[in-house]
């Protein structure tokens, strides 16, 4: 949502497995680059892997951190999200859009 719809000119997503396996092309893109990570659980695979690859994680989030305001909602499954699930995804995307704006404001 962030990379394709909301900030297509300022962001790019990379395959996490490529990051973790140390794919040359991906490592070259990440090393020294400003990165935002959004992890699905507290294991922080995305954040840890990007940091180990040499990316500069300036903003890091995990999905459960924002769940409090959504208690009781049914978000669907890994196959299909419900309307509430999509609304939550949009909210998470907006958090990253704000991150992008802040980062750009700091850089420019």
């Amino acid at each position, binding site marked *: *949502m962030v990379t*394709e719809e909301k900030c297509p000119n300022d962001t790019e*997503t*990379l*395959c*996490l*497995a*490529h990051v*973790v*396996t140390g*794919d040359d092309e991906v490592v070259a893109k990440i090393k020294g680059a400003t990165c935002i990570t959004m992890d699905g659980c507290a*294991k922080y*695979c*995305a954040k*840890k*892997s990007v940091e180990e690859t040499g990316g500069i994680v300036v903003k890091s989030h995990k999905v459960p951190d924002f769940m409090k305001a959504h208690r009781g909602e049914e978000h669907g*499954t*890994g*196959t*299909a*999200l419900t309307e509430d699930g*999509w609304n939550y995804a949009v909210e998470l995307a907006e958090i990253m859009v704000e991150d992008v704006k802040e980062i750009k404001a700091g850089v420019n």
Partner: protein
Amino acid sequence: MITTKIGVISCSGEECLGGTISRLAVRKMMEELKPGMVSTLCLPLFIAGDGGEREFAEKYPTIAVDGCSKCCAKRAIEKYSNRVAGSVDVAEIIGEAKALDKPLSTRNLADEHMEYVKQTADKTCQIFDKILAKQ
């Protein structure tokens, strides 16, 4: 009753359509085609070496479902655990160019994409059934 576990690890491919197809194909297996018979593992967690993921793939036959010909899932299983019991490359089913297309939100998937999901899930099921028959 099935007592032996069979694992399926899907590509995490956030970068390409093949990744989306591979993940949905594994979900289709878990929910529709082989409910209660498939154990899936998180690929980034498997590669990062946390939890019992690697141990699972050492002990039980595991199928890799990869979204592109880089075959991260297959390579990871063989590097950290054991030989894969089988592997599926979405790029071989739908073609490399399509597999490397931009990823799609699941809201925007068309019938064409759902057909790719079906073909990938069917191929994975064939491998699954062969493994099951040998046990």
